[in-house]
């Protein structure tokens, strides 16, 4: 394999389309959109001029109410950019350490796309146009409010947006023709991301309160042109 698998996954994450298009409704004072993707209340978005807004309310795939950080900024419309996911790879222990020390600001390092470091792949010989295939386990996680959220709140406010982020990841793979089209994939959801022990105590895997989903899929990549 010419490139390490973790770099390939990272590039797919970087290629996720994190933009949505909106038009501002003067009457209802909100921004109409076709897709809300993995947008969440309280998270920041930016317009094409770099103005920052905080999402105050939204209805999935309908509209967004966004409050400008700078009060002189125009109403939110046009190309709207959602936060880029933070990519990490590694085992639970190493990923937790690296993710913890990178910054104390959790909002700057969420949502997380964590490629679980259990890298095993199958390469193919001369007879095949396929370079490799690999079973991936990738976690899409975001911060959650363990004190105030009921289980349904975790699902509505975090699991649902993270499922949308999975679809963004799948779309990123599908748009790149060097990957074989994905026939199916599996999503496992976590209202709380961690390990629940026998005595009922809940232990986080990463040192933060997170919810989200796990994506399991078979990634197949074609061989690329030879380089002389």
């Amino acid at each position, binding site marked *: 394999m010419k490139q390490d698998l973790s770099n390939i996954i990272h590039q797919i994450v970087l290629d996720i389309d994190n933009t949505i298009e909106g*038009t501002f409704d003067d009457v209802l004072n909100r921004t109409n959109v076709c897709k809300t993707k993995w947008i969440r209340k309280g998270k920041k978005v930016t317009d094409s001029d770099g103005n920052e807004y905080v999402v105050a309310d939204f209805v999935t795939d309908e509209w967004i109410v966004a409050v400008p950080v700078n009060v002189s900024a125009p109403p939110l419309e046009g190309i709207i950019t959602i936060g880029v996911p933070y990519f990490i790879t590694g085992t639970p222990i190493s990923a937790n350490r690296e993710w913890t020390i990178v910054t104390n600001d959790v909002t700057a390092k969420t949502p997380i796309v964590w490629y679980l470091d259990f890298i095993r792949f199958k390469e193919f010989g001369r007879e095949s*146009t396929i370079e490799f295939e690999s079973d991936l386990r990738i976690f899409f996680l975001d911060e959650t409010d363990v004190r105030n959220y009921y289980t349904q709140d975790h699902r509505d406010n975090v699991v649902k947006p993270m499922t949308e982020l999975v679809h963004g990841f799948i779309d990123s793979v599908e748009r790149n*023709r*060097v990957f074989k*089209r994905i026939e199916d994939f599996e999503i496992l959801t976590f209202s709380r991301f961690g390990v629940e022990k026998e005595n009922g105590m809940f232990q986080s895997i990463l040192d933060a309160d997170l919810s989200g989903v796990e994506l399991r899929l078979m990634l197949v990549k*074609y*061989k*690329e*042109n*030879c*380089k*002389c």
Partner: protein
Amino acid sequence: MSLGCNCDSGLSNTGRPNCVPIQSVTSKLILVPLKANDGTLNSIDLSLPVPNWLDLVNELDASKRWFPLPAFENVELPKADTTFEEANSGRMVFIRQGKRSFAGELWSEDSSPTLLGKLQNNRCVDFGVFIVDVNGNLVGSKVNGFLFPIPVDNPSFDPKYMFATDTTTSKIMVAFDFDRLFDESTMYMVTPTEAGINFNELEGLVDVNFINTSETLTDITFDAVLDYGTAYNPIKFVGATSADFQLSDAGGILSPIMVTEYVDGTYTLSFAFSATMQYTITIIKTGFTGSYTWTA
């Protein structure tokens, strides 16, 4: 020439360098008319710098334009058996190679019946295809320093609509035969590195229609819609500005023009028109095409 035999030489030399670019799995096709209206054969002049590929897709002259199709699934390019004449002694004599066929499927959102209608019209045009593989290489026929589209036996062009089922999405199945005289040894490719573009990224133009037009001597108001959408609500052509339109009469292009979009997809173009003169408004926005002609 691989179709027959070359009597002027012996066996051909068979060495090869270490790194030979080879095409991978076919991803999409770019349809190109074989001959432009001015009589020239459409091709890429390989002695010149690479062309602006987006200009080829957005070419105003449709007889010179490139028409990229969406990405295919389940592509097969089988070749029929070669025909030999066999004598009673068992001796075989080569008659001709079998024809090469193409079969591929356009899935889900690429399988609109509207696109089917546009593809069905292609059968009446003499056209060829540039093949694009999953790595974004462009494959054509290199002859005398030019890369030509691979000629298609256009009466064989057969797009078919397949309805969705419980287990499969809707599809357009596209099948055709290549020209039976095409010499496959002339196939060469242009890589994304050489071209500066991954050819999988090229997309065809979208037709825009002018409806509900209302003309006066000072302006023309119209709704601009696409062929796609629902029966009641075609998708609107929104967000265009004055720079996306061109006004012309028999004397050429007229300027300046002012175009305003009052509500989504409804535009007013303002200009001092002369009575009884014929005018044409053309969309020149990248990725779109359409025009409307009227007499003021």
